[in-house]
């Protein structure tokens, strides 16, 4: 009897071990590295060998004096001098620290520059977030197709990403502060620099941040998003509503458009993959928004490895209220005098179009920040194998909320020599308002009509 009991216990332990192995994304030993030699979300805690990337010591220690929530962010690194500026004539000295897309920009535009500053790692993580990520490390899994997640407790499902798909899911499911509204401007200057600013107002909420959040309602939805055009007058009143689903192959993204001219709400299945972005003058695709969004199913994703590259980072100056749009929006590219580049460790992820699938980008290469899992730079290749478009997300750490987001994103088209810049708010009263309490009612098709009133 004793032997039978022992056998049963032994079998139960074995079964538990097998089950745990099947469910766990990383072993408990690997997960235990989080918060030790790895940061809570899986970055290397230590600096690099030549000390040009510092150790992560918990992020920005103190919010700059004088900052008040809701007011413009004070640049904590305003006193840093430019260490050097990369330009077309000296770029050869820095090739090993530049993406191919950045090299292409420097080769294409004789006026393109990249001011490089000292590296800072300001991003910190709340205890609540750390708990979720620890849970994810042991439990979150990709569904077999790779197009969705299971057992994921929200943000950063794979802090120790083992492949390209897990890395891209970390970008898609990164922490964005829960919910927010924001007003910003985007522009698509012609080659000679002519542009009309387009003003957008957006509302965004993670499903779990809704005030009427229910665990079992809409459980395949990860976020709700509403975008209204406020100006110019001829576009004003058009509104886009998106319920972004987790498994978009099982249940495609739900999207609706309110057309103010027709006063009609229509389904918009085209707001996905490579259809043109809103008012983008054909310079970006729908899945370019936020550097990358949507289902990963059309590509094979490969995690190439980590690199130390000059990335747009801590871009407080680009957001300064002392600047006007005309100071930033210049012919061919933005005025990089106001940009800030730092050396950071990034994951290089290459997505190659699958056989039998279609997209205007045959290949896309993303550079994902180790401290935020946000894509900071991307190269997009056309069917002929040439770099066609290059994107950069100039991020900023919102220290009162504990999230880093692209504050200004720039998408370059190297063939037509044009670019789209989005996220500018220098001349707006406010930009990001975090902590908005939305309900599901704010993201219904009937809410679109209300939002569309000019």
């Amino acid at each position, binding site marked *: 009897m004793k032997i039978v009991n022992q056998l049963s216990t032994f079998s139960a332990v074995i079964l538990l071990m097998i089950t745990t192995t099947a469910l766990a994304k990383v072993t408990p030993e690997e997960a235990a590295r989080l918060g030790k030699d790895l940061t809570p979300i899986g970055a290397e805690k230590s600096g690099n060998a030549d000390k040009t990337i510092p150790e992560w010591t918990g992020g920005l220690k103190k919010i700059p004096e004088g900052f008040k929530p809701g007011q413009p962010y004070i640049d904590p690194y305003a006193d840093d001098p430019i260490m050097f500026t990369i330009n077309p004539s000296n770029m050869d000295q820095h090739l090993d620290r530049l993406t*191919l897309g950045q090299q292409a920009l420097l080769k*294409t535009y004789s006026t393109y520059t990249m001011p490089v500053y000292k590296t800072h790692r300001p991003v910190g993580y709340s205890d609540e977030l750390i708990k979720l990520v620890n849970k994810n490390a042991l439990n979150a899994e990709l569904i077999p197709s790779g197009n969705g997640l299971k057992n994921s407790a929200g943000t950063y499902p794979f802090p120790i990403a083992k492949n390209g798909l897990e890395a891209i899911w970390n970008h898609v499911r990164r922490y964005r502060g829960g919910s927010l509204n924001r007003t910003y401007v985007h522009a698509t200057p012609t080659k000679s620099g002519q542009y009309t600013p*387009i003003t957008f107002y957006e509302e965004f909420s993670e499903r779990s941040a809704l005030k009427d959040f229910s665990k079992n309602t809409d459980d395949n939805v990860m976020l709700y998003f509403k975008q209204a055009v406020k100006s110019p007058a001829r576009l004003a009143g058009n509104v886009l509503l998106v319920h972004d689903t987790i498994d978009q192959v099982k249940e495609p993204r739900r999207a609706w458009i309110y057309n103010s001219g027709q006063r009609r709400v229509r389904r918009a299945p*085209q707001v996905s993959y490579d259809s043109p972005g809103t*008012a983008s003058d054909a310079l970006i695709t729908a899945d370019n928004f936020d550097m990358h969004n949507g289902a990963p199913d059309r590509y094979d994703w490969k995690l190439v490895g980590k*690199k130390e590259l000059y990335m747009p980072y801590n871009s407080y100056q680009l957001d300064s209220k002392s600047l006007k749009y005309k100071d930033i929006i210049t012919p061919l590219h933005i005025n990089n005098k106001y940009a800030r580049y730092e050396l950071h460790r990034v994951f290089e992820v290459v997505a190659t179009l699958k056989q039998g699938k*279609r997209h205007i980008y045959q290949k896309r290469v993303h550079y994902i920040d180790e401290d935020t899992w946000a894509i900071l730079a991307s190269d997009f290749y056309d069917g002929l194998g040439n*770099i066609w478009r290059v994107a950069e997300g100039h991020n900023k750490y919102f220290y009162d909320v504990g999230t880093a987001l692209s504050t200004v994103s720039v998408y370059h088209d190297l063939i037509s020599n044009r670019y789209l810049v989005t996220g500018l708010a220098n001349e707006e009263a406010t930009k990001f308002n975090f902590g908005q309490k939305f309900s599901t009612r704010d993201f219904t098709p009937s809410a679109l009509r209300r939002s569309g009133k000019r």
Partner: protein
Amino acid sequence: MGTNCITRFSILIFFFSSPLFANTFFMPAPYNHCFDDPYYNDVSPPHDKTLAIGKCFYQTAEKLLLDSYEYEQHDASSNRTHITTALHYADSWFRLAVQQGNTDAVTFLQHTERYLIEDEQKYNQLHTFPPVSEGSHATTH
């Protein structure tokens, strides 16, 4: 008074008919109708439908190319963006149609690629440096 009105009206007519107006005030993309094809969002459309969508973009690009000659004296970069983008959409659909075994798509794909290469060559002439292609550069690391 009457002369003033006529002058102002003429200025307005000139402004609204100029390519600058088209560039600055966002005309809808000239190939938007191609996205309305019921098969556009289909995961694997029949090969003849795939070819048809490719042709829609291709024909729009051809029309835009003809129109573009009229704008050569102006900043026609918006038009140029649309031509290139329409060709890339066409290219992606013809590639898929070829993979699906549509033999007619082969010729269309060749023509599109020729257009795209010419487009990029035109771009090369405008710049000191050639565009970066995957094979033409040493890897960064």
